[in-house]
């Protein structure tokens, strides 16, 4: 039988704004060419015409699901460049918001993963359970999707007093829901049959392909920026990094699932430990940047994300380089798809949690 070439995307329901040129032989994929770049919008170039604070609203656009995660390394890099010390309350708030956003992002991913496996309940439940967390973030920032909450030197505004009790209520609710997710999806025999042993990424391959985030941790490598290079107050909080050794789609999904539990623990500690005080170091007017360069790394929802800022002491940064986790995970997709079955394509593709907009920037 001869090979047939299939174009999955950008209008295919099985991919995002992204195209996979597949060559299938029977039911088996023999060749894959990923075709990214459909939603490239020149974020890095745009940064060169705006000052540090003006950059915030558009920098979170590529990953509106994970807006705190994508801004975190940026504000860390800015603070490094400007040499600012962030108040402690702001650090706790940032951590809490980052974890809330990690859960929002993981739930969105879980919903899409569910519907792409044909499990419509697993699409509706996470989408519905995002709501309490979105409400929580709205309580803090005033926005529902793009919070623009982190600014260089702290957070944009303080949270109302009801934030702590609200957060604890949401955490209690969601802990119960996670058990139900486990019952209906993660222990479902058909889910196990479809994901166990599918798309195995060994430890060696994961390192040589440069995978990050849950993809890396699903292959048995204990690598998380929050633990390895703790920023803000992460080193004062007690949490664990879930790591699974199998490296298949199941372990990648499970790592993300367990991460949500850990995020709940972090949010709980952060809101309880949070001291009173200012939440921002004032930065009045246009800040003239000092000449120099800075680099910062943080753990966004999809993995380690880093920013590199070069300044020539002008009003605007000279160059900003963004390294998003989706782009770093992109090489694993063709590697895993080659030799897989066509039916496993959505499992592998969405198991990697590739977000085309983030990768294209």
């Amino acid at each position, binding site marked *: *039988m001869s090979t047939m070439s299939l174009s999955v995307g950008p209008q295919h329901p099985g991919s995002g704004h992204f195209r996979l040129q597949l060559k299938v*032989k*029977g039911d*088996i994929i*023999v060749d894959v060419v990923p075709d990214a770049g459909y939603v490239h919008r020149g974020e890095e170039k745009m940064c060169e015409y705006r000052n540090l604070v003006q950059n915030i609203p558009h920098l979170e656009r590529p990953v509106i699901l994970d807006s705190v995660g994508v801004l975190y390394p940026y504000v860390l890099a800015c603070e490094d460049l400007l040499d600012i010390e962030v108040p402690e309350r702001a650090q706790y708030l940032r951590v809490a918001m980052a974890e809330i956003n990690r859960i929002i992002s993981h739930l969105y991913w879980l919903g899409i993963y569910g519907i792409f496996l044909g499990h419509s309940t697993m699409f509706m439940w996470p989408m519905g359970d995002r709501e309490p967390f979105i409400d929580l973030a709205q309580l803090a920032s005033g926005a529902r999707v793009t919070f623009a909450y982190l600014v260089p030197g702290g957070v944009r505004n303080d949270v109302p007093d009801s934030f702590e009790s609200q957060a604890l209520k949401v955490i209690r609710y969601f802990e119960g829901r996670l058990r139900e997710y486990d019952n209906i999806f993660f222990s479902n025999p058909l889910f196990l049959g479809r994901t166990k042993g599918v798309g195995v990424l060994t430890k060696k391959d994961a390192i040589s392909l440069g995978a990050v985030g849950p993809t890396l941790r699903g292959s048995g490598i204990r690598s998380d920026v929050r633990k390895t290079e703790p920023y803000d107050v992460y080193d004062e909080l007690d949490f664990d990094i879930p790591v699974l050794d199998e490296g298949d789609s199941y372990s990648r999904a499970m790592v993300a699932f367990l991460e949500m539990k850990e995020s709940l623990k972090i949010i709980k500690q952060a809101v309880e430990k949070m001291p009173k005080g200012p939440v921002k170091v004032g930065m009045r007017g246009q800040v003239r940047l000092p000449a120099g360069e800075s680099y910062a790394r943080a753990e966004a929802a999809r993995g380690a994300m880093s920013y590199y800022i070069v300044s020539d002491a002008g009003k605007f940064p000279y160059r900003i380089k963004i390294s998003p986790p989706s782009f770093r995970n992109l090489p694993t997709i063709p590697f895993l798809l*080659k*030799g*897989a*079955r066509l039916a496993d394509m959505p499992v592998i593709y969405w198991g990697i949690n590739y977000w085309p907009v983030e990768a294209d920037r």
Partner: protein
Amino acid sequence: MIDIPFLILSVLAIVTAIMALESKEIIYGAVSLAITFLMIAGFFIILQVPFLAMFQIIINVGAVAVIILFTVMLVGTGTVVATARDRKNSIFAITVGIVFAAGLIIILSQWPGAIRAVPISLSIKEWVGGIASMLIGPFTPVFLTAALLLTAALIGALTLAKSEGTPEEVKDG
């Protein structure tokens, strides 16, 4: 004396049989063949053997026509372009077919048994009982041979058409 359902069915059967061979797209040929099978099943109902008619539909329409369609899709032959030699060949074939048909019709219409024959009709119980007692009685060896033949054909077809193998083998080349 020829009645109307028989006439309609026979005209349809002959037309679809010719279309099965002469249609430009081979897939139309396969679909026409399925309709021919269906018409034959219709004759069985006229002959009051509904059991056999359903058997014919299940196996010939549901299996034979489907695997022919399936093979056409796998193999994917395009439209046929006739050459001069083909035309000569087909004139020869038409002559042979007509001579054959004329001979058969003359022989059959001269056969005295056909004119004297009277139709019989059996209830389903008698029919099934009769077939069953023959299968278990005098025709047991035929039955077993047919079963063995089917098994052999199944194994043979699977061996012939076995595809490239497991994903790992395909990946390695």
